[in-house]
């Protein structure tokens, strides 16, 4: 016996981007569907600096992914590593495009880990001020020297220094300046509106 109103075989839902409320507040830039090249480089650099500030930062990043319930997008460390490898300046790089949802997730991770390391970031920058006032190099203070040394080693191990735009960083001084600048940038990201500021800065010059 046939029913009067047969149910359809499949129910079609409209395509809606399901994101946690924190990430849904970040607007998608018009005319941009994937993460631009400069943004992938910038995000990977910030994550690299966080790893150099704290040795346990890579585990903290995975923990933050769990806490923010972002495992739908980044389920494990392998996917996290693959996303980081979309940085075009890495030695091991992959050309797969990075969707905006994953970019938002990485942005949230950077901001949350930077917020937890605010005390260390402030301390290192305060010491940098004091050393600069005395005309002393940053390597004079042991924790700052340790951070810079670790940053140089990680950068040279992971990035492709044969690229012409990275040729500058064969010099220790240039790499130190980049590492110090990243400390201050991380502190800006850790602020009250840090996530919005970082997100909007990633697409500067990419929208028409």
């Amino acid at each position, binding site marked *: 016996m046939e029913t009067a109103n047969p149910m359809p075989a499949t129910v079609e839902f409209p395509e809606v981007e399901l994101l946690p409320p924190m990430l849904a507040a970040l607007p998608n*830039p018009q005319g941009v569907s994937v993460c631009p090249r*400069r943004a992938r480089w*910038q995000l990977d650099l910030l994550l690299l600096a966080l790893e150099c500030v704290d040795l346990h930062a890579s585990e903290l990043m995975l923990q933050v992914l769990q806490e923010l319930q972002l495992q739908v997008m980044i389920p494990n460390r392998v996917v996290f590593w693959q996303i980081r490898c979309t940085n075009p300046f890495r030695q091991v790089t992959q050309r797969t495009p990075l969707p905006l949802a994953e970019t938002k997730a990485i942005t949230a991770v950077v901001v949350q880990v930077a917020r937890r390391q605010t005390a260390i970031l*402030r301390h290192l*920058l*305060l010491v*940098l*001020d004091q050393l*600069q006032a005395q005309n002393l190099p940053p390597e004079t203070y042991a924790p700052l020297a340790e951070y810079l040394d670790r940053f140089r080693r990680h950068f040279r191990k992971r990035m492709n220094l044969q690229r012409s735009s990275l040729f500058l960083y064969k010099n220790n001084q240039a790499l130190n*300046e980049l590492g*110090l*600048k990243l*400390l*201050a*940038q991380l*502190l*800006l*990201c850790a*602020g*009250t*509106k840090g996530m*919005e*500021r*970082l*997100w*909007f*800065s*990633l*697409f*500067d*010059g*990419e*929208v*028409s």
Partner: protein
Amino acid sequence: MLLQRQYSLPNCTLRIEGLSGQAGAEQLDIVTLCEWEIIGQNQRLKGGKDFLVALLNSVPAAAQTWLSGVKLRRSPHYPIRVELEATNQVSLHIPRKLLQTSSEENSKSPTNDEAGETLEVRLTWLQLADLVEALDQFCSDSQTLPTLTPIFHFLPRQAIAPAVPLRKQLMPLGIGAASLAAMAAIFFHLPVPERRPLQEEALPPTPEAVTPAPAPTTPNPPNP
């Protein structure tokens, strides 16, 4: 009733004084004084609402541009010019007309107008981050000027200077065109080579031409 709001950070204190639009309300609607104290330098800058709005328009936007690392094609037309020069050095150029000077400062520096139209304030990265954070906290405070909200926007492509300057981009094209023109000028003055006809009679006879063909030894049998 005079209302005060203070946003304190280790290197910066932002103090806002003002009045409420409604009697007895705690919401600060009218700003009468904005005081920014840079703690590392023991410097206090005072101004009115114009100073506060100028800080809000200039400093967070400059911080975003610095975070993105792009270079602007033209310097932005913000009331306060922010320059992030070298490592750990930031300078703010604040127009003096936005600032309130006390009577003591006026008596100390009677030639204040001759010193320049802008006041240069030098900050470190840490002081800049604290100022940005104080402004963010102020904007997020629903009890203080709720109409002022932080405005973020994506910088358009037209506002960004190209990574490689136009002169550098055009240099290979210019060198190529100049070398082509130089070679064309040189070849223009060279004579065109003439085509000479082949001189067959002058050629000596080849040995194959004079060698007679061998005669057949046996005649072919006639067909029946």
